[in-house]
């Protein structure tokens, strides 16, 4: 019975890990799509195609969310669940910029900053998925660059500059949530690392303060 119970627990652990990785991977693709859409020159000419792609991304996100909720509901990860769910809400909020900006030449002004933000998010998501240490300073620098561009240029040339202010605030919110998520998963990887070292050196690892 203990043997089957252990196998069952291991299978659940694998499913939980897969659900988290799938969700983060889907969000990563979604953020990449959002930032790419900002810079598409033929967006208005091929609106139907982009709406179709957005619809497909949306469905993928919600399928991933469904799996995440199912696998994390009754586990000790349930506190992290609301933070993970909040990530996709912020993504949709970032996407709102695409709907608000009427003059798409404004996006050409932000092209470098958008690419930098998307690249940093890609690195962050991949590192979280691989339980590697995540340095969010580069991402915060990218947000600061965008903020400086907003204050120096977009505020003047944009007919409705407040929408870019909303975008900056959403980026800051994303930064905060990613900080929580990376700390949570880094703690767990630290725990795994410590346990391995402890085994090798015969430590009494009961003394260590394991994360929740």
């Amino acid at each position, binding site marked *: 019975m203990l043997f089957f119970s252990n196998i069952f627990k291991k299978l659940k652990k694998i499913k939980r890990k897969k659900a988290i990785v799938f969700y983060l991977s889907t969000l990563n693709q979604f953020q990449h799509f959002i930032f790419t859409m900002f810079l598409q020159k033929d967006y208005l000419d091929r609106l139907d195609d982009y*709406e179709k792609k957005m*619809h497909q991304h*949306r469905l993928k996100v919600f399928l991933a969310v469904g799996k995440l*909720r199912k696998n994390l509901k009754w586990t000790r990860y349930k506190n992290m669940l609301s933070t993970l769910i909040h990530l996709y809400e912020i993504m*949709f*909020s970032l996407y709102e910029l695409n*709907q608000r900006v009427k003059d798409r030449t404004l996006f050409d002004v932000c092209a470098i900053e958008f690419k930098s933000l998307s690249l940093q998010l890609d690195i962050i998501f991949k590192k979280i998925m691989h339980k590697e240490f995540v340095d969010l300073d580069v991402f915060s620098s990218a947000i600061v660059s965008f903020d400086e561009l907003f204050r120096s240029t977009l505020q003047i040339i944009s007919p409705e500059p407040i929408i870019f202010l*909303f975008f900056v605030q959403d980026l800051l919110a994303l930064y905060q949530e990613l900080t929580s998520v990376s700390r949570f998963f880094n703690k767990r990887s630290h725990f795994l690392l410590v346990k391995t070292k402890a085994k090798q050196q015969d430590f009494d690892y009961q003394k260590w303060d394991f994360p929740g």
Partner: protein
Amino acid sequence: MTQKLRFILSNLIGVSIAILVNIFFGLTHVYLIPLTTFVVMQTSTGNVIYQGLIRLMSVLFVISLIYIFLHSQISLFYYLHDAALGAVIGILSNLFILPRHPDIEFRERTIPVLEANQKYFAAIIQELLNQDPETIDTQGNNLSHSHKGRSGTKNAQIWLEKKIINLPSWVYASGFDSGLRRGHQFFLNRTERISDILFSMHHLACYKFDEDLMDRLHSIFTECAGHVEKFFTLILTIMRLSKTYAINDFLEELEKLDKKFREIVPYDLETIDIRRDYVYLGEFIFLFNELRSVLIKLIQALR
């Protein structure tokens, strides 16, 4: 009868006819006719002929490939003949035997999402205004326990997430009825846009706002929220093909909300940026305006 049931019955009848035809007119007697009929009938709604022909081409290609490897004594023409016959039966069954109605199925799939949007919006407003759980629901009645505070928002959000997955993606499929395509895609796009706006609103509503600020905007927010809920109710009434009625576009109320917000928060970029709750509230009001525009476009499209 639901569209799904019609589709299952149509499949059963089509395959039964194919089996009979296979017995009397089949040249190969390997049940290729009913098999092809079944494959060709698995098309999405409103896409019978285009997808049916694509599937027929695929079946013919697979048969030819298998024939090359099997070196059967029966001529390839016989297999192709049976496959083509099966495809004809399949396409005609889809067109004439309990055909699916794209407009009905579209309504069946979209109405639950709009209902979920309505409930989610009500829950978001409740969370924003931190109301007593036993106050209002979407019809102005006393709220049930399932909508209490944040758990109410969470439940409404989970419900919406489940419903969105069932939205009719087949309106984007190649070969979808060209007469219906533009209108259905527009409506689907707007419905999804409402969900996007609501998710953004929830992200902002979760923030802990200054109580004094919220107290001053409480009544006007409640008034505007009431109007939005009336919009949702009207859209659902029209979708259910019931009698419609006139409605106030609440532009005046939104302008009042905006004016009141600007009285409290000077709406220039330097000042609004001082506090995050000012920016978030400003964005929430912005989203309110966007939600109103999308709802009006939906109603205009339906009328």
